[in-house]
């Protein structure tokens, strides 16, 4: 109200009109008195302006009525005084009345305009107040809504620790309703009741607290981790009257943090206890992590610039893979450290950080020992290669030696056999019985010697992988029959009967001559080791995609240990047996070589003292591979 009109402050309207009436009456009395009693020697009409101005100020333009009234009184008194004559005095009075009128109107007009503007200002002021009151209400409602709907607890606690306000959020988190706790002490909410005092003290001291972590108890006794922010509430005079507190349930966050920490601790433990080195370096070449192995080897360089501390350089190393790795590529390479004299297998992988940068994770695997071992192996390999070359030379020489030997051995055998046969046939005259027997013995042993040479040559070829097989379509049964026929005289001599059970078989691809050699050998063995008057049973059958040959005797059998060496060269179980049974000890080894050259298998089932069964099987659809020179013998 500071800008009010000077007189606008006068409170009572009645008083205004009374003062105005008195002023008007005073003017009228003055006018009558001066005009009629004193004459016109004094100027008195100036006093007429007092009621005129008052009326103008208070009643605005209505002041003209006062002006008309006072003008009329003045003109009338003047008129009466001059005896109703139109003198100059009367005209002057009329003129003054008009001046009154003009002055009243002017003051009234100015006053009215001023009052109007004041009114408008007042109106605007009122409007503003109304508006700001609305806003205030809105804000209050808004705040109330926020407080009500907040998931956080918002509480007011007075200076004595008594709860004064308790929002919905607090109800939800703490389990207490507002009416249960408002007016009670807040100490019961804390797991440690002393916390209530500590918080109050802290808030008062600091004015406010932020993210203060503590543990509170729900109504049901369950502890909850909260993060509290609080501030002091003051009254109008600035005296503290309490604290307002906003708390958030961070139990899940705390649990998560604990889990993250546990996992990070575990991860750390794993990294620390790894045999391999683990190393992380940032995009700007700063060492971020080194595990125990690396710290031990290179010292703790975390926080340093890698190329400076590890390589003594002023710029990143030219070989460094960091630029490509931080672009998302992985790299693997070998690095020799002159400093520690070790070779490492490095695996480098991009590591995305939370802040969006990418670091380089490097796993160092110490491969120094492996490198040494590899070098050792390479050396050994070179030596071995040389030895292999030597061995190949030895094998070649052995082959040449055997070939020459056999040639040289056969050459003298040829005339010996020819001469003896001529003797036997009587070319050199008749022989007596003793001479005939003698020559028969020599010839038999010549034959044996020849067979031995052949067997040795066969086995040396098998061992050198140079066995010659001429593959042709053939019937296994025919070959079996042929072999039986050849062994029949020997069987008869030993009083052994050969019994054959031959199933119908498909033709196979094989070397009939070589297979006959195998079957003859097996038959010969069976007869040789059979008891007298016993049977040797020969069987053939088809088993899936193979033809199977088996021969069973009830002879001396073979022990388990002997079975293993049975198919090895020169392995006749004991050498005396060789002499007794007239074998070279090579037959089964040659048989194995021949069967294997047919992609087949040969094996024996036997029990010592209970006889043996020898088997061989040959695949039916054996492809013809005639890459080697046919054997002629």
């Amino acid at each position, binding site marked *: 109200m500071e800008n009010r009109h000077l007189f606008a402050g006068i409170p009572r309207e009645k008083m205004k009109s009374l003062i105005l009436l008195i002023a008007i009456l005073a003017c009228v009395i003055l006018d009558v008195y001066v005009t009629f009693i004193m004459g016109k020697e004094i100027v008195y009409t100036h006093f007429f302006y007092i009621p005129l101005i008052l009326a103008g100020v208070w009643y605005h333009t209505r002041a003209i009525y006062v002006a008309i009234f006072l003008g009329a009184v003045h003109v009338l008194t003047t008129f009466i005084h001059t005896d109703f004559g139109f003198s100059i005095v009367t005209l002057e009075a009329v003129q003054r009345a008009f001046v009154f009128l003009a002055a009243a109107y002017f003051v009234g007009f100015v006053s009215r305009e001023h009052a109007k503007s004041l009114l408008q200002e007042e109106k605007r002021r009122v409007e503003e107040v109304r508006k700001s009151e609305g806003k205030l209400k809105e804000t209050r409602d808004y705040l109330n809504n926020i407080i009500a709907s907040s998931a956080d607890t918002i509480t007011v606690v007075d200076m004595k620790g008594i709860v004064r306000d308790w929002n919905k959020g607090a109800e939800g988190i703490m389990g207490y309703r507002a009416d249960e706790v408002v007016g009670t002490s807040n100490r019961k909410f804390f797991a440690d009741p002393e916390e209530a005092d500590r918080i109050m003290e802290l808030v008062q001291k600091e004015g406010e607290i932020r993210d203060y972590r503590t543990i509170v108890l729900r109504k049901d006794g369950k502890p909850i981790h909260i993060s509290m922010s609080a501030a002091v509430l003051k009254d109008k005079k600035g005296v503290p009257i309490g604290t307002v507190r906003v708390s958030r349930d961070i139990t899940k966050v705390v649990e998560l943090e604990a889990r993250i920490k546990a996992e990070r601790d575990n991860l750390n433990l794993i990294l620390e206890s790894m045999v391999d080195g683990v190393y992380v370096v940032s995009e700007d070449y700063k060492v971020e992590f080194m595990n125990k192995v690396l710290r031990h080897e290179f010292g703790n360089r975390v926080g340093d610039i890698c190329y400076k501390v590890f390589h003594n350089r002023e710029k990143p190393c030219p070989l460094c893979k960091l630029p490509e790795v931080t672009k998302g590529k992985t790299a693997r390479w070998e690095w020799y450290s002159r400093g520690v004299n070790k070779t490492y297998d490095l695996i480098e992988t991009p590591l995305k950080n939370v802040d969006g940068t990418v670091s380089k994770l490097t796993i160092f695997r110490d491969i120094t020992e492996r490198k040494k071992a590899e070098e050792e192996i390479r050396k050994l390999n070179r030596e071995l290669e040389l030895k292999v070359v030597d061995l190949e030379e030895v094998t070649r020489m052995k082959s040449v030696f055997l070939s020459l030997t056999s040639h040289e051995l056969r050459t003298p055998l040829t*005339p010996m056999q020819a001469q003896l046969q001529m003797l036997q046939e009587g070319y050199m005259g008749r022989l007596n019985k003793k001479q005939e027997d003698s020559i028969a013995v020599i010839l038999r042993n*010549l034959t044996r010697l020849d067979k031995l040479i052949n067997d040795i040559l066969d086995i040396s070829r098998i061992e050198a992988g140079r066995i010659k097989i001429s593959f042709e379509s053939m019937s296994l049964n025919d070959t079996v029959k042929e072999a039986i026929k050849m062994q029949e005289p020997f069987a008869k001599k030993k009083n052994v009967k050969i019994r054959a059970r031959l199933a119908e078989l498909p033709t196979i691809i094989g070397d009939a001559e070589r297979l006959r050699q195998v079957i003859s050998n097996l038959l010969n063995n069976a007869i040789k080791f059979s008891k007298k008057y016993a049977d040797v049973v020969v069987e053939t059958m088809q088993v899936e995609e193979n033809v199977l040959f088996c021969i069973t005797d009830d002879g001396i059998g073979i022990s388990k240990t002997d079975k293993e060496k049975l198919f090895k060269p020169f392995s006749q179980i004991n050498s005396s047996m060789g002499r007794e049974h007239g074998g070279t000890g090579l037959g089964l080894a040659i048989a194995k070589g021949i069967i294997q050259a047919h992609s087949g298998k040969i094996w024996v089932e036997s029990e010592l003292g209970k006889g043996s069964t020898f088997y061989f099987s040959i695949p039916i659809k054996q492809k013809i591979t005639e890459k080697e020179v046919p054997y002629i013998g």
Partner: protein
Amino acid sequence: MGERKTIMIVDDEPDVLLSVGQILEANNYRTIKAKDGHECLEKLKEEIPDVLLLDIMMPGLTSREILNAIEKDSRFAGIKIIFLTAVHMLEAEEEDLLALKQVVDFIGKPFTMRELLDAIEKTD
């Protein structure tokens, strides 16, 4: 068997030469003996045999060279050739020795009289 067959024996081993000769002569064959390839070709100029018993591994001329000489001369086209050898397995380069039409048989040393005589009789 009308006429006696003439058989040339070529072997560097004198005992083989002697023994084979004895067997053949006892069986009513005429024999010509040569101790090596040169002698063989030399004697072929004088007389052409029905059968040539030829050792494979000999010093001097190789079997290949002897065969080439025989193959070239049309007068020798009627000779039947039988190899005698202590090497039972032929190497690849020797294998084509058998390709020649005149080569009819192959006897491994040591041989029995029967094998020898059978092989010669078969040449008829």
